[in-house]
């Protein structure tokens, strides 16, 4: 996102040094609140997104309560049943309850994506801050490394990491850790670049030099300024990224690289459902819609947040 970097650099030129961007942004949000018409639309997106997201998270938390059947227990005598009072969404080819599988699958996929984004932030922010603040050789080496990761084409980085890790004898959650690692590593570059851009700007500010003169740790001072400054773009970025990661996980499971069966998994359930696409189309509908819903929830919420937090849009 060199784009974002450029924007932040541009913005800084127009403001006076004693006004930190964060303060300006907060002020702008307050200005926005007064603009009733815009606010309506913006908060509508944010509100819908927030409601959808909260419902999603609640469902994930309450999955053990909401699920009606054990998700992995097959019963071939009741396979491929239509929806009923016993099985709200019917049963799959193994005779498992689809409703319960969708719920448990959701809990997993949401947890994995949150963990992956968290990992991406945990790796990306420090690297970005150090690279941006110290510059020089450390900056160029780490940024070339990040560029190298970005140059890794498409899904191939995931394919390689997962194939490498497949051999390790990992079970359940530990197996998901591989996925989290792969996705987290791939989330990192964007976060790093975002953070680095802001840090570079801050590092050149007078107060940092002033801190030097006083003998305070310049990094400490800078962090106090940098972190609040990047919080809002990072939140927006992370939220949208959550939705994106759900799609990637689904695609990887679709290729057979997710967590091994019979663990409930939207992507691999979709893949299995494909066999029965014509005779039992609903099999593919439930996990498909579940994916759409979650991605949409995160996207809408991210959009809403961006509208509120991004001063550029707030200017209008």
């Amino acid at each position: 996102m060199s784009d974002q970097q450029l924007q932040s650099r541009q913005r800084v030129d127009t403001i006076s040094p004693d006004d930190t961007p964060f303060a300006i942004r907060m002020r702008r949000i307050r200005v926005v609140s007064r603009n009733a018409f815009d606010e309506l639309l913006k908060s509508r997106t944010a509100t819908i997104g927030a409601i959808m997201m909260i419902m999603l998270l609640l469902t994930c938390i309450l999955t053990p309560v909401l699920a009606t059947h054990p998700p992995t227990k097959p019963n071939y005598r009741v396979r491929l049943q239509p929806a009923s009072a016993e099985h709200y969404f019917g049963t799959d080819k193994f005779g498992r309850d689809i409703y319960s599988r969708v719920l448990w699958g959701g809990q997993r996929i949401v947890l994995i994506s949150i963990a992956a984004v968290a990992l991406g932030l945990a790796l990306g922010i420090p690297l970005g801050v150090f690279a941006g603040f110290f510059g020089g050789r450390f900056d160029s080496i780490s940024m070339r490394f990040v560029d190298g990761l970005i140059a890794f084409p498409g899904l191939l980085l995931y394919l390689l990491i997962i194939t490498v890790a497949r051999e390790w004898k990992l079970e359940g959650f530990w197996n998901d850790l591989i996925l989290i690692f792969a996705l987290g590593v791939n989330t990192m570059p964007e976060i790093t670049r975002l953070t680095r851009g802001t840090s570079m700007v801050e590092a050149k500010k007078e107060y940092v030099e002033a801190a030097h003169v006083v003998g305070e740790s310049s990094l400490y001072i800078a962090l106090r300024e940098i972190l609040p400054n990047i919080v809002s773009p990072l939140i927006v970025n992370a939220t949208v990224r959550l939705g994106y990661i759900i799609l990637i996980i689904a695609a990887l499971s679709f290729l057979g690289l997710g967590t091994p069966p019979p663990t409930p998994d939207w992507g691999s359930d979709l893949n299995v459902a494909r066999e029965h696409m014509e005779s039992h189309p609903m099999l593919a509908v439930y996990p498909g819609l579940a994916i759409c819903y979650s991605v949409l929830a995160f996207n809408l919420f991210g959009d809403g947040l961006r509208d509120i937090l991004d001063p550029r849009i707030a200017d209008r």
Partner: protein
Amino acid sequence: MLIYAINRILQIIPVIFILSVLVFGFVHALPGDVIDTLTATDGEEDPEVRAALEEEFGLNKPIYVQYFIWVGSALQGDFGKSLVTRRPVNIELIERIPATVYLALVGIGLSILIAVPLGTLAAVRRNTLTDYSAQISSLAGISIPEFWFAILCILLFALHLGWLPSSGYAPLFEEPGKSVLYLILPALAVGFRQAAFTTRLTRSSMLDEISKDYVDTARSLGLSERKVIYKYTLRNAMIPTITISGLQLAGLLGGTVVLETIFSWPGIGLAIYSAIQLRDFPVIQAGVLVLGIMVVIINLLVDLLYRVLNPRVGLG
């Protein structure tokens, strides 16, 4: 600008170096015994065969020597021969890369064709029905898993309506008519999703431009609304759209594995994926490296283009 360009071009050398180390490292970390995978089914292992094959593919040399030999011959355009087909890797690449590039280019082209008018219209008629439907459909495009959309397309257009072939590929220059027919559904699946991103971007950058001072100035000078929008704002608003389309194009190289599977599209992504499963390391290494270099070059061009189009951006 020239200095900046030269600087950027020089920067890609370390990036490609890091990429080559990364891919080489990953490939050699892949679990399983390459020779065993290649030679064994029911047959017993034969140390003589192992020795002969290790010699033939240079696997008996220390790992760093293997790396330098690989890089050395790669610099001369020779990627060795495939472990599996025993044909030169170049043949495998030349057979496969055009299919992926073809799909990616047409997909992105389609995306721009859909997105630019739609995004512009949505911005110009902000908060009308047009705007809402554009926004909703682009949200849908972002949220629907690509492979799910592809399967639904096959069901509808190939199976129920019988308008289009469901899968397959024909080279553009050998059988143009057939080639285009085969391309439509996969390109639609690529284009739909990418268009969703681009529509949103076009809309927001149009809104950005419309709210700028020069638009008011132009209006007050008596220029027609149409002329203002299409001559000035659209041109400026296109800058981020072009940028993002370029980045999308880079992302599609190696990012279309799932679609290639669904449509039996003989692209490079699928070839690398199956090479990973067969541990055909010369093909994996060469494929990822060549795609990666293409990604780096596209990113570079996008970056330079951005600066040429947008002279306000300071040269860093």
